[in-house]
C-alpha cells in the first residue's frame, strides 16, 4: 500500500470522490481514505437530484455549471443511471404562488427555463399526480442519478488516473510540520502528503480541530423512505414549492428510482433542525413517517396500497448560511470541502473543481468566495 501520496482526500462520499477524480485528472497521485465504505454515509442515502431549481440565487452560476458537469460525466462514463427527468414543485395553496413566481423570475433571468403550470398541464407531464394541487413549477433540466453508482463512477475515474482508495481507514489526526500539512494519522498508520483535503461531511469539523482549525459545521438529521419496486408511476422529481425560511420551513422530495422503488421524504416546519451525533444514527421518527406518507398519498392517491420497504436516517453537515466551506483552511496544504446543507450532491463536482483550481492556482469557472472557509470569522470580526 502506498504510504505516501501527492494528495490525501479524507472521505469517500460524493464530495471526496469528485475531489479525488479532479486531483487525479490533473496528474496527482491521490490517496482516498474512508473510515467506512465509499458512499456509505450521507452520499449513498441521497436522493441525488441534480438541478438548479429553487436553490440559491447567488449560487445559480455554479449550480448551472455543476448540472452541465454531471451531464458531461454521464457522456464520458454512462454508468450511474443519469436521467434528465425534470422537476416539479407543487403548490398546495394560492398563497405560495408569489414565491413560485419570484423563483421563476430569478431563474429565467439567469437563462434557465422554469415555468408555472396549472394542474392539467402538470398531469400531462406527471399523469399519476392526481392530488388537489393548485399549480406546480416545472424545471425541465433537472436530473437524478443513482447515488451509489455515481460515487463508484467518480472513484473509477480517480483510479484510472492513479488514485488509490482505502476503505476502513479512519483518519484520527492531521499531521503538521513547520506550520505545513505533512500528512495524516490513521487507524492503519501514518500516511504522508503535502496536500490534505477533508471531505468528511459531518465529521469534518472534528478532524479539522486536530490542527486547531475551527469550522462552524453542525450535523442535521435527514430521513428518507422507500417503497418496494413497482411499475413506472412517477416520471419526474416532485417537490414542494420552496417557502420562506429554507430547509427549516419544510420540504418534500418524491421520485422513482431506476429500481422501480419510490423514494420520498417530507419534513414539515420545525422537523429538520434537530441535531445529533453522526455516530449514533437513530431510526426515522413517527411524525416524519406520517408526514411523508401523507404528502405522497395527497399527490399520488393511487399508491395507497403500495408497500413501504425501507427507511433511513443520516446526519448531513450544515453551516450557518447553508453553503459549503470549500477552500484552503488553517495550515498550508490543508483544504476543506464540506457543509453541504442538504443539497451537496449536485454541488460536489463544483466543490471538487474549486479545490483543484485552488491547488493548481488556476481560475475557477464560477466565483468561489461564497464558500470561503474563513467567511464567518471574517464577518464576526467586521
Amino acid at each position, binding site marked *: 500500500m502506498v504510504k505516501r501520496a501527492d494528495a490525501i482526500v479524507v472521505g469517500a462520499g460524493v464530495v471526496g470522490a469528485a475531489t479525488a477524480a479532479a486531483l487525479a485528472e490533473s496528474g496527482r497521485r491521490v490517496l482516498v481514505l474512508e473510515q467506512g465504505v465509499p458512499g456509505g454515509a450521507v452520499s449513498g442515502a441521497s436522493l441525488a437530484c441534480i438541478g438548479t431549481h429553487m436553490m440559491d440565487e447567488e449560487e445559480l452560476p455554479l449550480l448551472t455549471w455543476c448540472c452541465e458537469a454531471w451531464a458531461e460525466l454521464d457522456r464520458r462514463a454512462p454508468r450511474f443511471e443519469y436521467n434528465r427527468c425534470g422537476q416539479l414543485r407543487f403548490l398546495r395553496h394560492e398563497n405560495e404562488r408569489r414565491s413560485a413566481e419570484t423563483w421563476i423570475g430569478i431563474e429565467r433571468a439567469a437563462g434557465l427555463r422554469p415555468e408555472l403550470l396549472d394542474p392539467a398541464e402538470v398531469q400531462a407531464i406527471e399523469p399519476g399526480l392526481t392530488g388537489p394541487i393548485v399549480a406546480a413549477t416545472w424545471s425541465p433540466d433537472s436530473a437524478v442519478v443513482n447515488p451509489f453508482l455515481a460515487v463508484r463512477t467518480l472513484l473509477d475515474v480517480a483510479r484510472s488516473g492513479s488514485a488509490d482508495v482505502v476503505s476502513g481507514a479512519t483518519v484520527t489526526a492531521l499531521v503538521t510540520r513547520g506550520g505545513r500539512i505533512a500528512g495524516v494519522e490513521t487507524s492503519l498508520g501514518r500516511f504522508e502528503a503535502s496536500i490534505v483535503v477533508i471531505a468528511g461531511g459531518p465529521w469534518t469539523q472534528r478532524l479539522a480541530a486536530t490542527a486547531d482549525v475551527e469550522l462552524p459545521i453542525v450535523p442535521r438529521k435527514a430521513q428518507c423512505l422507500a417503497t418496494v419496486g413497482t411499475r413506472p408511476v412517477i416520471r419526474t422529481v416532485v417537490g414542494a414549492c420552496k417557502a420562506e425560511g429554507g430547509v427549516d420551513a419544510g420540504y418534500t422530495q418524491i421520485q422513482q428510482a431506476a*429500481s422501480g422503488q419510490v423514494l420520498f421524504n417530507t419534513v414539515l416546519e420545525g422537523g429538520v433542525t434537530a441535531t445529533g451525533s453522526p455516530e449514533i444514527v437513530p431510526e426515522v421518527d413517527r411524525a416524519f413517517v406520517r408526514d411523508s406518507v401523507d404528502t405522497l398519498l395527497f399527490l399520488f392517491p393511487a399508491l395507497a396500497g403500495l*408497500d413501504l420497504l425501507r427507511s433511513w436516517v443520516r446526519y448531513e453537515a450544515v453551516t450557518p448560511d447553508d453553503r459549503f466551506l470549500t477552500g484552503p483552511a488553517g495550515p498550508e496544504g490543508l483544504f476543506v470541502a464540506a457543509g453541504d446543507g442538504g443539497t451537496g450532491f449536485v454541488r460536489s463536482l463544483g466543490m471538487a473543481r474549486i479545490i483543484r483550481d485552488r491547488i493548481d492556482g488556476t481560475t475557477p469557472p464560477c466565483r468561489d468566495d461564497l464558500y470561503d472557509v474563513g467567511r464567518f470569522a471574517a464577518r464576526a470580526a467586521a
Partner: protein
Amino acid sequence: MMRIETDILVVGGGPAGLSAALAAAKAGAKVDLIDAGTQPGGQYWMQDPVGPPSTRQQAEGAAAARAAIAANVTIHSGAEVWAAFPEREILANGPAGPLAFRYRALIVASGAYDRVMPFPGWTLPGVMTPGAGQRLAKLGGTAPGRRIALAGNGPFLYAVAATLRGIGATPAMLVEAGTARCAPARLVSRHPARWAEALQLLAAVRAIRDRRRGFVVTEALGGDRVQAIRIAPISHDGAIDTTRTETISGIDALLIGWGFRPMIELTALLRCRHAYDRDVGGWYCSADAETGRTSIPGIYAAGEVTGIAGAAPARLSGALAGIAAAADLGLVTSDFAHRRAILARRLQTARAFGQALGRLYPVPESIATLVCDETIVCRCEDVRKGDIRAALSGGTKGVAGAKLWTRAGMGRCQGRICGFAVAEIVAAETGTSPEAAGFNPPRIPLRPVPLNVVLAGTREGAL
C-alpha cells in the same frame, strides 16, 4: 386503528413466546402476544390451519395456546410487527387493520428462519429450503416431490425426514456435509430425555435408501424444474473436491439448507446488543440466561432469537423471560425463586444439548466456494457473485459496502435470504471473517407494509 396498553408485550407465538406469555400472565401481568402466523404455535408447534392437531407437537402447541388464553393472555394472530418507536411503542399490521401497542416490558421471541447458501441451479423450481418443505408437509400434508433429495447439514434434516416419512414421502436421498457419527450418539446418550425423539429420527433417517456423509450438493440441474443434482465430497482439508463430482438423476425436489439463523430484526432495531457464533446460527441477541434480559432495560429475549438451540430451550427460556419481566414490574409469585431455579437448571441442560448438537454439524468453512461468478446471490435484485466480487475489488468493503454497490439485500426480503451468503462471500473474498463482514441492519418497516396502513398507524398522536 386499535390502541392497546399492556404490561408485557410478547412478539412471537412459538414455544418461547407462548411460554413467556403464560408465565408472565400467571404472575399477574396483563399480557398481549403478537404473532404473524394465522394460529399461534410458531415453527415447532405449527398448527394445521384446517384440521385438529394430528401430531404430538401440534397437540402440545394447541395446549400451550389454550393455557395462555385461559391465563388471560390476549393473542393477536396474523399480525406482523413492523415498527418500534421510542416511548415503548410497537406498531403491527393485523388482519383487521393496524394495531399500536404501548408496553411496560417487551419480550422478543421471534424465532429463526432457514440459513441459505446459493449454488448453481438453486433458483430452479423444485429447489427449496428444508423449512419450506417441512411447512408444505405440516400444513397440507403435501409432499414437495416424488423423489426428494434432502441436503445440507444439521439435525433439522432428520426432523424433516421424519415429517416426510409421516406423510408417506420418505426422501430418496440424504446428502449431509457432516461426517460425525459417534459424537452425536454419545451426546444423545448423555441426555435420556432425548432418547425417544432420537430413536424416531434415526428410524426416519435409516428409511432413506441413499445416504451420503461428507458430501455437498454442488449443482441442481434441470430445465423448468430440478431433474438431477450434482454432488461432491468434502476432502480432508475441508475443501469441496469438485474433481470427484457425481450426478444423481431422477430427482424432482431438492430440500437444501444449512440450519437456521436467529430472527434478530426486532432486537437489532431496538439496538439490543448482539453477538456472533456461526455454530448457533450467526448473529444472535445477547440475553442473560436466567432472566432473558437484553442490554436494553425493559426488553427481554427468548428462544431461537438468542441463538439456535431447539424447541426445548425455547420453551424454558421463554418461561424464564416471562417470570423475570413480570418480576421486574414488581409482580413476584410466592414460588418465584424456586421455579426460577428449576427452570434455569433445566434450561442449562437443554441449551447445552442443543448447542452441542449445533457444533457437531457445523456449516463447512468452504461453503462459499460453491457459488460461481454467474450464480445469483440476491434473488430479489438479481445480483450475482461476480457483481459482488467486482464491487469489493473496486474498493468497497463488508456486507454494507457490497449492498450499496450491488443492491444485494436491498429488495423485498431485505437480505433475509441472501444475508448469510453475502457475509460468507465477502469474508472469503477479502480474507476477513463473516463476523467482521457485518450484517445489514434492519430498519423500519421490519416487513413491507402498505402505505395506507403506515399512515393509519402513525397518523394519530402518540398513545
